[in-house]
């Protein structure tokens, strides 16, 4: 399998929040944590605790009230979302329905879609890596939900940014499909050395692919802890959530 072409160089991908404070209306979230390079970190916690807020802040969609976002010693706090070395998958609307599968993936390489032959081949390779070889010309509506998720993943692969944020992009899929997608994240993104931060409601998801789990609760992002350690002996706040 060919993937060496888009593996990042080993040093990239340490994502750090320094005294980061994010505000949305009356809600405020504090984060002072480090997400380890080339690891999957799951964010877990009750609804409304601020998991999505944190990802929006990291991706640059929500300017922080104070603090800094630092990637590999580079301050990206002020950078526009498209200029950060970060890819993000949202809960929905990850694909443009009027563009073909190949175009949707191609956007990860060039936003103006002026793709060279080499880049087109790159797109085709990425599509076959996620198991969609030959579907390049389809429109998203002609694909199943699982296939649509795979297209979005292929775009993340070609964009080849060192950090990937997942805001529950697979939550609309059935349990079996979701597990399949999580395994794909593990086998493609993690194998390519990406730093992955994902939101989940289900500890089983975390056990499946996450190396670390960070509890988000009461306006505070706690430091990530090894998955088994945290889930086997959950602190009080997490126990209350897991039930």
């Amino acid at each position, binding site marked *: 399998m060919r993937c060496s072409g888009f593996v990042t160089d080993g040093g990239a991908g340490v994502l750090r929040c320094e005294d980061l404070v994010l505000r*949305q209306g009356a809600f405020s979230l504090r984060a002072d944590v480090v997400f380890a390079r080339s690891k999957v970190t799951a964010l877990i916690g009750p609804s409304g605790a601020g998991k*999505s807020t944190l990802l*929006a802040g990291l*991706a*640059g*969609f*929500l300017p922080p009230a104070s603090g800094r976002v630092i990637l590999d010693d580079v301050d990206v706090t002020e950078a*526009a*979302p*498209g*200029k950060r070395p970060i*890819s*993000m998958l*949202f809960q929905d*609307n*990850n694909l*443009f*329905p*009027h*563009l073909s599968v190949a*175009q949707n993936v191609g*956007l*990860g390489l060039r*936003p*103006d*879609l002026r793709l060279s032959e080499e880049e087109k081949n790159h797109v085709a390779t990425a599509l076959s890596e996620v198991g969609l070889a030959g579907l390049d010309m389809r*429109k998203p*509506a*002609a694909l199943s939900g699982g296939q649509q998720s795979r297209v979005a993943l292929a775009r993340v692969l070609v*964009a080849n940014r060192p950090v990937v944020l997942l805001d529950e992009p697979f939550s609309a899929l059935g349990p079996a499909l979701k597990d399949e997608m999580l395994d794909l994240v593990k086998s493609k993104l993690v194998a390519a050395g990406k730093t992955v931060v994902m939101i989940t409601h289900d500890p089983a998801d975390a056990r499946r692919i996450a190396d670390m789990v960070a509890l988000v609760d009461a306006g505070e992002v706690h430091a990530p802890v090894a998955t088994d350690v945290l889930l086997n002996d959950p602190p009080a706040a997490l126990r209350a959530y897991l039930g």
Partner: protein
Amino acid sequence: MAHSLVPVTPRWPGVAAAALVLVLTLGTLAAVGWRAEWGGGLAPADWAAVRFTLVQALLSALLSVLLAIPVARALARRGFYGRNLLITLLGAPFLLPVIVAVLGLLAIFGRGGLLNDGLVWLGFQPLSIFGLHGVVLAHVFFNLPLAVRFILQGWLSIPAERFRLAASLNAPVGRLLEWPMLRAVVPSTFLVVFLICLTSFAVALTMGGGPRATTVELAIYQAVRFDFDLGRAALLACIQFGLCVLAAALAWRVTGNDPMGAGMDRVVQRWDLSRPVVDYVVILLAALFLLLPLAMILFRGLPAFADMPATVWAAAFRSLYVAIGSAALCVLMALALALRGGVMVSVIGVMPLAASGLVVGTGAFLIVFPFVRPADIALLVTMLVNATLALPFALRSIAPSVAQINESYGRLGLGLDMRGWTWLRWVVLPRLRRPLGFAAGLAAALSMGDLGVIALFAGQGQETLPLAMYRLMGAYRMETAASAALLLVVLSFALFWICDRWGRGRAEM
């Protein structure tokens, strides 16, 4: 949650569009305000014009709404073959050139029309259609369908479950369900029709006239064209503006409905209806009233169609060129304003609704008059004014879709670093295709049929098709006028259809 960020597009097109709208609305208003001769006050004839304007608009709105209620009720509760077609046709008068409808009405109610032929045959005196009742008749013809669509929407917005509940309780549907709905829908419908009737120059021009049936707009036209009394025209334009702002402010407060809205293909299931005859008679009468005049155009216009003089064809080409230019400009302005967004933009977007074509035209006339011969730029000014007057409708079609695109895909676009032209080309324009096509079709058809500003400006060499028709009617060349009307209708609807069809081109949107 929705922290909405949107890919950046250049600011200047929105600013330029806003500036053009402001010049054509407030700028022309300033011109008439400055030139108006306030000293003399209003002459008795001016007061009569104000009175007539208000009276005919009140009567027209009242009749349109009163007649629309039984028609809407019948359509709401009866399903029959051709119902959807009829409802679609009810939307057509919006695009139908006024002068065409007037000619059709004359063929029924006019001097040599069917009605008078019948009266004479029965031994009665023929009726004259010109004056107040002619103006009101034409306004009802145009606004009855609009009012029916508004009120029908009201009827169909009552949930089916309510009717079921009322039936199981044996409760009076009329008092319980229909009366509250009418109380909410009728006033706004009345005001919209009233506003339209305040600014329908073409109807007053063709059906009115004389000291007892002159609207303010008609008086403006006469002051410019016949008396060349620009000071008085400007004063009247100020009065017209005041009337429009008043009515628009009222209408603004009570409306939110969209007359072009879809979803009227449903029939309410009812359990309290016994005799369907009345409903069908009402529907039949309404359909006859709306369709007969148009059938007469076809009937009278077709035979002479091949013999139309070259001047009519020349006028048709001029109209096409104005309509296409106006549609392109209108859609570009609407797109630029919609992308810009914000409160100021929505205010600018509705300002043309309160503007009267004649007021804008008078202002433009005053502005350009010292520098060029108005006839030389008649088509250009008509194009600009038509584009601006159609802007609110275009914006209403485009702006919600732009907002939805930003809402759904703004973050995705930002995350992928799509900006400016890239964002427009790959996301906004393809996804906007349908509203863009619809708006372009609407603007083109409205401009094609417009008989307003052009009447103020045009000399012999610049007449558009509606103006050529009007002049043919003035010369009593009714057969040729009917042929020209036929051509005008075909061109107007063809323009709309082509643009709208283009917009629907892609299925997988």
